[in-house]
């Protein structure tokens, strides 16, 4: 519970469970509270009867939006508050469980205005037109998708197809363009509506069926009577599908398993009482086994562990005694970390300040401004900011990017960073490698090759690594003052004086020298 407003007789509740849509409505929360507080026993929603409504499903919907489930809830006559609650349930379910209406979406209609059989079919975007909800003008399907606010928001779910889903009744009147919008004539529900048709369409049969159950169960909480409808799919040998399916599912729960997982010693009877409060009618089937009923709308119950969590919540987890695990294990840092720590220690001893910079940066920083050519780097598909579009392949640019903001700060500036870089393997299989590197920069009026080489030598001598520096050229560095660091035949890094054009490119004005190395394995035993 988030807050309690006694004056307005209301409470706000935070619902974290994104797998628990049955409590995404006032009706659902009231139902859960009633059982939790012991005011009522959990009871499966009842199917009051069959309606005469038939739905014929067009096979052309196959690749577009193949599934539909419908039900008529009679005798509702909702209050303003009830309507508000249902609309909010519809929106929340379409958004989250329905994945922004892609996987499933809900529609409400005045059942009495609709003639059976419904046809769930496809319509030509330009030749089909109806008056969308809240409007007075007839619009073509394409106009709705391109101009109506709901069309603009959700049109992406269907716009790539040539023909779009369309729901019509026995007289050919349009009910809706799923999952975009209802018609203004049939799809407007108000406080005078006695009988409501609930319709769910979508791309996943289970999701569509589950959504319908949750919605009709919520309507039934206000006294509505649930009636089933019949869907006929055109596929060969397909049986009619009767919805909603209000049958409970049953799971066996092992008392000993539950006690082991909770670290508790509850007796079967205690567990049954707790399960009932959590909304699961249960009985003891054998000494260790409870037979637990999950009501049709409890779509979150996939496994025994889901029941065990409900059990723990019903019993209050704060009543469990925390206990540090009585197991003996040997702790330790990763070898990679140990190696980095050794290097950091020496660099700090040499007077260098450690830095932390983003590894997610942009080629503008780690390629263009360093005047190098380099194509194979890890680039994002969906960057959020132009300054964070790719993973860096080396560290030095990140350090210069920091130094450029510090030209007013006392020199000499001597800094280093140990951090991750991403290398893309050239084998074309898309494999990348996260490689930790170390880079150091010294910048001041007298910074130069000898100074940085001394640091490099000291660093590598400290870890006992044999190496050589051989002349090389690299456009970021000054020719004749740049060396490749070789360990045996392997190139492990570069050391040199930064090229004046690079220094200027970063808005710096003092001589600078740097090295960058792949983290070498520790040679000292």
């Amino acid at each position: 519970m988030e807050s309690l407003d006694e004056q307005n007789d209301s409470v706000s509740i935070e619902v974290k469970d994104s797998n628990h849509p049955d409590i995404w409505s006032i009706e659902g929360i009231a139902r859960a509270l009633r059982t939790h507080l012991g005011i009522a026993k959990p009871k499966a929603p009842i199917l009051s009867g069959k309606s005469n409504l038939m739905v014929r499903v067009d096979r052309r919907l196959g690749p577009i939006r193949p599934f539909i489930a419908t039900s008529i809830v009679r005798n509702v006559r909702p209050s303003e508050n009830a309507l508000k609650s249902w609309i909010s349930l519809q929106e929340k379910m379409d958004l989250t469980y329905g994945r922004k209406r892609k996987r499933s979406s809900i529609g409400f209609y005045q059942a009495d205005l609709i003639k059976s059989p419904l046809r769930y079919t496809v319509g030509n975007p330009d030749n089909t037109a109806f008056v969308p909800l809240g409007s007075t003008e007839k619009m073509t399907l394409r106009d709705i998708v391109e101009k109506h606010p709901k069309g603009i928001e959700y049109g992406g779910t269907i716009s790539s197809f040539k023909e779009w889903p369309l729901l019509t009744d026995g007289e050919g009147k349009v009910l809706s363009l799923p999952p975009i919008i209802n018609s203004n004539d049939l799809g407007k529900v108000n406080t005078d509506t006695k009988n409501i048709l609930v319709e769910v369409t979508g791309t996943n049969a289970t999701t569509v069926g589950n959504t319908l159950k949750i919605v009709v169960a919520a309507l039934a909480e206000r006294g509505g009577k649930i009636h089933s409808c019949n869907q006929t799919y055109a596929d060969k040998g397909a049986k009619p599908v009767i919805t909603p399916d209000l049958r409970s599912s049953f799971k066996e729960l092992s008392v000993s398993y539950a006690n082991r997982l909770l670290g508790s010693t509850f007796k079967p009877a205690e567990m049954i009482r707790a399960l009932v409060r959590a909304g699961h009618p249960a009985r003891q089937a054998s000494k260790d086994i409870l037979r637990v009923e999950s009501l049709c709308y409890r779509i979150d119950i996939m496994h025994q562990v889901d029941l065990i969590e409900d059990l723990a919540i019903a019993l209050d987890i704060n009543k469990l005694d925390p206990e540090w695990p009585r197991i003996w294990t040997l702790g330790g840092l990763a070898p990679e970390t140990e190696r980095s720590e050794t290097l950091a220690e020496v660099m700090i001893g040499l007077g260098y300040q450690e830095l932390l910079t983003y590894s997610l940066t942009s080629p503008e920083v780690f390629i263009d401004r360093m005047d190098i050519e380099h194509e194979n780097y890890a680039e994002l598909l969906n960057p959020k900011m132009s300054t964070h579009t790719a993973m860096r392949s080396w560290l030095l640019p990140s350090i210069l990017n920091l130094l450029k903001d510090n030209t007013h700060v006392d020199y000499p500036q001597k800094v280093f960073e140990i951090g991750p870089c991403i290398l893309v393997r050239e084998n074309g299989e898309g494999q990348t490698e996260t490689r930790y590197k170390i880079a150091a920069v010294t910048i001041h009026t007298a910074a130069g090759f000898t100074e940085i080489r001394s640091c490099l030598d000291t660093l590598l001598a400290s870890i006992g690594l044999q190496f050589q520096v051989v002349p090389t050229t690299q456009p970021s560095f000054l020719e004749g003052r740049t060396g490749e660091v070789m360990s045996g035949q392997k190139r492990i890094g570069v050391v040199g004086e930064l090229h004046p054009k690079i220094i200027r490119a970063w808005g710096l004005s003092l001589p600078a020298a740097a090295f960058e190395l792949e983290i070498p394995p520790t040679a000292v035993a």
Partner: protein
Amino acid sequence: MRENDVKVLRTLRDLGGTASVEEVARKTGLVDAAIARSSLTLSEQGMVKEQTTRTTEVFCTEEGHDYLANGLPERRVAVVVHDAGGKLSVSDAVEQAGLPLDFVSIVTGWIARKGWGKIEKTSSGNILAVSKNPPKDEDEEVLARIGQVSIPIEELPPNLKRAVDRLLKRNILASKERTQRKLEITPQGLNAIPAQASIDEVSSLTSEMILSGDWEKIRLRAYNVSSPVPSLNPGKYHPYLRFLRTVKRKLVTLGFKEAVGPLVETAFINDDCLYMPQDHPAREIHDLYYLKHPSKASLEPWKDIVEKVAETHQNGWKTGSAGWGYKYSREEASKLVLRSHGTALSVRSMISKGLQIPGKYFAIARCFRPELLDRTHLTEFNQAEGIVLDPSLSLRNLLGVLEMFAREVAGADKVRFKPDYFPFTEPSVELQAYKEGYGWMEFGGSGIFRPEVTEPLGIKVPVIAWGLGIDRLYMMHRQIQDIRQLFTTDLEWIRQQKVG
């Protein structure tokens, strides 16, 4: 008294009590600005008086420099005449002295005026007669005295002053006005000079003094140990990384082994192995960074588990679960993403060959999510994550682990637990910690991995999984309000952060 002040006082005393700033500078080796500063201090304290005098200084013109080197024209002509036997025609004399003919009247005029010779007018022209080499006169004395420098006119005796006037008129000398500052030591200043204790008061001890034993003979000048000194910038750990090191150390002492792993992962490792359905909202492009290049990686390294994970998503496989009930896509699984949560590293630990049971593993994981940077959001951030594996584990142990973290890592006074939801854990628990002055805070999420997570990976024991909001913990620890400060580019701030 400052060292420079003493120097100035001593120098003034040694120079007889009064001296120009230039003289003091020459003697002390101090720059003018330093002397100016000292004299200001000293005059405020009444130890020195400043006098400003205006002087006229004279110096040679270009012509003057020529005569300085070669002699005045009248001298040169007189010498020629004398050397020629005492008589010569004026024009010949001027010519032989190397002077142009328009000098005739000037030269004859000066020789006559100075009384060095006579002009005899004859029918063949004017003859110049010089009977003896004239002695050096005042004009020449002044010229020699000035030489290459400037001297104040006031310093010259009256007769030479007259010579200067003449030479100025002849454009051989020029003059300029100059303001000169002089310092005069007062009796008070004299008294203030510290006694010269020994012959050698020195400022620095040398190796030679130490070895030779001379240190016994000298006296080291006392420093003002209270005065400010230049500041240094030592090499230090980055403040946030220092904090992460502390957290790592604590976890290691609690028996956790560190896990590391790649920042670029397949969606398979990042999400599928955690039983997050492939259309889960957290996998949309708004919540997860996908790679454009390279966009996919082979699932070959995971071929032993891909099938089981796929089955579990579809129908629960052998886990006893209903599964998510959708068609699993290997294509989707092979997409490359930037690691979006530290739990991906827990997956890495669980599928690693070296996994030990019982075992405790942790990771400080750099993670990425498509967020715009603001006071509370980073696009690249850290999570502390970990798992505990053992057949004996229960929810009570999960609470025990959380309680230990709250007390040891966050320094919390009290803890409480709330139910939570994650797709990959059940039961799931939120840790709330109470700290004096901060109140109750949400501190981390945790749970026991679902069998749908562990069983496809070949793990048959309960696995406790926990995550701590390590960035937020650091902000609380350092009273940082803006999360962007963790990756600040402000070197000054980084340098100023306290250690420990």
